[in-house]
């Protein structure tokens, strides 16, 4: 099947205009590079198959059995060291680079008896993208599905609901409800791994598979968690890169049951300092209101987030 058969011509009119736009973008793509990368990935992933015939399978089985017998009775080689769950998390911590820009999708499920305002504010059930660099992060879309918000390198939280203006807060200035949302929605991988290594019991999520590309570890807090703390976590770590491919956090909520926050790695963001600042998410020359403009800053919150944010729950 040729590319033109895979992608039939568009109808005249708007469809044709959109198609032309996509084709123009496509014409700038170096498909050979992508082909080489994917084939390399597939090669690395491929394991010897026995599908070439029963005879080959039997021979392979016989050879394997023979080598095992030789190993058990005559050679007794040292057992191959297998990493422990703690070593997997430690390797992820060591490989974690505070200057890398990683992006994850994020979904959050609150306990069923959560107060409606909290669910509304946290956007329970909505899938978002969070990009992190160290303890900086940016969440998109923002509150109520609009704009973005995040935290900058100085720990200040900012909200940019539109491209016309943004608001910025020192951590001490945050309304309590927003502080909670930042804690629940944010992601600081380094701090999290430190906490997991220090205060959690670690075990395999399932029987470890030698050939699997990832290791799955379950972390359970020693003792009862306080409200807001993580009760348990499930980490999936890439064996080669030590990158955290996915992360599920069960965080204890003040009002009943744990909230479940799921992060899945989607890729690296292009390094961009402005990604984690409000200035990167509003048009040039538009204002960022801070403590020096409290009325306008509050107005942005009120207009975009409502009384529930400003006055707390």
């Amino acid at each position, binding site marked *: 099947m040729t590319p033109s058969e895979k992608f039939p011509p568009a109808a005249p009119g708007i469809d044709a205009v959109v198609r032309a736009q996509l084709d123009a973008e496509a014409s700038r793509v170096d498909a050979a590079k992508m082909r080489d990368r*994917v084939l390399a990935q597939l090669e690395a992933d491929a394991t010897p198959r026995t599908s070439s015939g029963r005879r080959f399978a039997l021979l392979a089985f016989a050879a394997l059995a023979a080598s095992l017998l030789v190993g058990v009775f005559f050679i007794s080689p040292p057992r191959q060291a297998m990493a422990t769950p703690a070593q997997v998390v430690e390797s992820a911590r060591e490989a974690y680079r505070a200057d890398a820009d990683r992006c994850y999708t994020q979904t959050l499920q609150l306990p069923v008896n959560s107060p409606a305002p909290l669910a509304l504010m946290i956007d329970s059930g909505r899938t978002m993208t969070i990009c992190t660099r160290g303890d900086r992060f940016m969440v998109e879309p923002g509150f109520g599905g609009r704009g973005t918000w995040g935290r900058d390198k100085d720990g200040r939280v900012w909200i940019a609901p539109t491209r016309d203006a943004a608001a910025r807060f020192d951590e001490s200035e945050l309304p309590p409800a927003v502080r909670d949302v930042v804690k629940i929605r944010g992601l600081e991988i380094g701090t999290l791994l430190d906490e997991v290594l220090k205060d959690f019991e670690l075990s395999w999520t399932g029987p470890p598979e030698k050939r699997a590309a990832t290791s799955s570890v379950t972390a359970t807090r020693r003792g009862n968690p306080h409200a807001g703390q993580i009760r348990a976590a499930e980490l999936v770590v890439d064996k080669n890169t030590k990158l955290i491919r996915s992360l599920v956090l069960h965080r204890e909520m003040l009002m009943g049951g744990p909230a479940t926050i799921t992060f899945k790695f989607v890729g690296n963001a292009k390094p961009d300092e402005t990604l984690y600042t409000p200035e990167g998410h509003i048009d040039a020359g538009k204002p960022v209101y801070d403590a020096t403009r409290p009325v306008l800053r509050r107005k942005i919150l009120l207009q975009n987030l409502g009384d529930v944010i400003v006055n707390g729950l």
Partner: protein
Amino acid sequence: MLTDDQRKRLGDWIKSVTPRALAYARSLVRTPDRADDVVQECLFRLLRRANDYDLERDGVKLLFKAISNLCINQATRERELVALVAVRDEDDRPFDFADQSALRPDQIAQHRELEERVRTALEKLPPMQRAAVELRALGMSKEDIAESLGISATNAGVLVYRGRKALAEDLHLVLGGTNSDEST
């Protein structure tokens, strides 16, 4: 290890679908690097199981479904019904921004400007509308779009209509805007 035949078959397939898959992903995510990562991951996941389905028949559909899933925020899916409004371009002829070989410099500049306007107009659409319109422009049926986006065929039609309408309004001045109906 892949056999030479497998390498050839899969490599050709990747080369044939990657340009448009990347163009689609780039329109849905923030950075080209991230789009690259998404498409690479989707291709890898899809092709490591290439023996489980008919790659030639279903591969493109499955690839675009995977890309859509990774790129689009499901919460932005829209359900409102709108009326159909569509436009026809001035010459009733498909644009081809990519092939500028036979154009004069002033025409190339015009095409680039138009390409930029279309790109900007697409960016203004909500992600689900944008995805639906782009999948339609890539030749997918309403049913295929619905499957790719995880919605009903009716909703897929609505998203396409609504996206076309918004684009037509946005690009009216550029295209000279003679409206006409387009079937979904």
